[in-house]
């Protein structure tokens, strides 16, 4: 029964005002210090396909003015959860989304189809949140660029190998391009478009 879809919804943040501020602060930190892993913890209790960290980011950043894309195969309970708590419209076309949630990092859509912003307003590009299995610091791909002293290294488990090639291309398009947030169940790492990648 369509009406009962809402009965699967689980609670969102307990103290929306304070929790949102803390999470926003954490996201801001990771965005200004790319490659730094920040533990977000279990703020929300989302449906299983959605990690608590991903849910926290969505609850904090997305609202009725930011269309969300979750892909064709996005489970119904995840869509209902995000629609109820964020109030965001769900879009089917990638280019219309302000935020995108990719539930499985090994199954990436064509990232170039997302809104890259335009030269007058490069900030209007999409932010893509990709769920991955693990993030380890100290080995793996080398990251350099603004906000990174010397260099950072991160190794990401459960992410399609082509991602880094795509992301290098993304950096070439500066000032246009996507910003990416990688999320494990409890941690996030941000990769803004300024990050240069060396595999």
């Amino acid at each position: 029964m369509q009406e009962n879809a809402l009965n699967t919804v689980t609670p969102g943040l307990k103290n929306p005002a304070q929790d949102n501020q803390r999470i926003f602060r954490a996201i801001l930190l990771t965005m200004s210090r790319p490659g730094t892993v920040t533990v977000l913890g279990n703020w929300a209790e989302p449906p299983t396909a959605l990690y608590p960290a991903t849910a926290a980011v969505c609850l904090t950043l997305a609202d009725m003015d930011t269309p969300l894309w979750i892909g064709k195969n996005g489970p119904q309970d995840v869509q209902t959860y995000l629609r109820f708590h964020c109030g965001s419209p769900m879009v089917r076309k990638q280019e219309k989304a302000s935020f995108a949630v990719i539930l499985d990092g090994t199954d990436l859509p064509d990232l170039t189809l997302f809104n890259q912003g335009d030269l007058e307003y490069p900030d209007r590009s999409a932010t893509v949140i990709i769920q991955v299995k693990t993030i380890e610091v100290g080995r793996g791909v080398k990251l350099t660029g603004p906000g990174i002293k010397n260099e950072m290294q991160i190794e990401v488990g459960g992410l399609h190998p082509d991602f880094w090639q795509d992301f290098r291309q993304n950096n070439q398009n500066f000032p246009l391009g996507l910003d990416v947030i990688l999320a494990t169940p409890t941690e996030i790492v941000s990769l803004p478009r300024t990050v240069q990648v060396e595999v």
Partner: protein
Amino acid sequence: MQQTISIIDSMCHGTKSRKFWMGTLARTNAKQLRQALANLDLAPEYDYLRSPEIGMTMVRGRAGGKGQQFNLGEMTVTRCSVKIQEGFVGHGYVAGRDKIHAELAAVFDALLQSPKHGPMIFESVIDPLSREQKEKRREQATKTAATKVNFFTMVRGED
């Protein structure tokens, strides 16, 4: 009697009846709802899906009910969503800033959806409340109608 029950039964499963009871709940006040809940002796346990929050909503209207849509103005609304233990989700949207009212309205909305309690609550709470509201409205309308003034212009003699 049989007929009444079947009417209520079918009403409890439609959007129309839900609209009706949500409206009735919104038009009562927190005090009445709290009393009604206490009288039910159910003491339902529930979790917040969305704790009570106060916001604004734009009220739109049409001139004469059929003209162009226009924004009449913003009003304060309080909303709340709860999930009762049976698994039903209830929403409360009420005018004003009374968080308890919104919460109680949400709890009642959830309970009314439950096949176990719904019809009983409809009969014992919603029905009397809506009758009372209807009566009040009628009274007000009568009072207002008594003060109605008809303006008319005398027909000017054309010939």
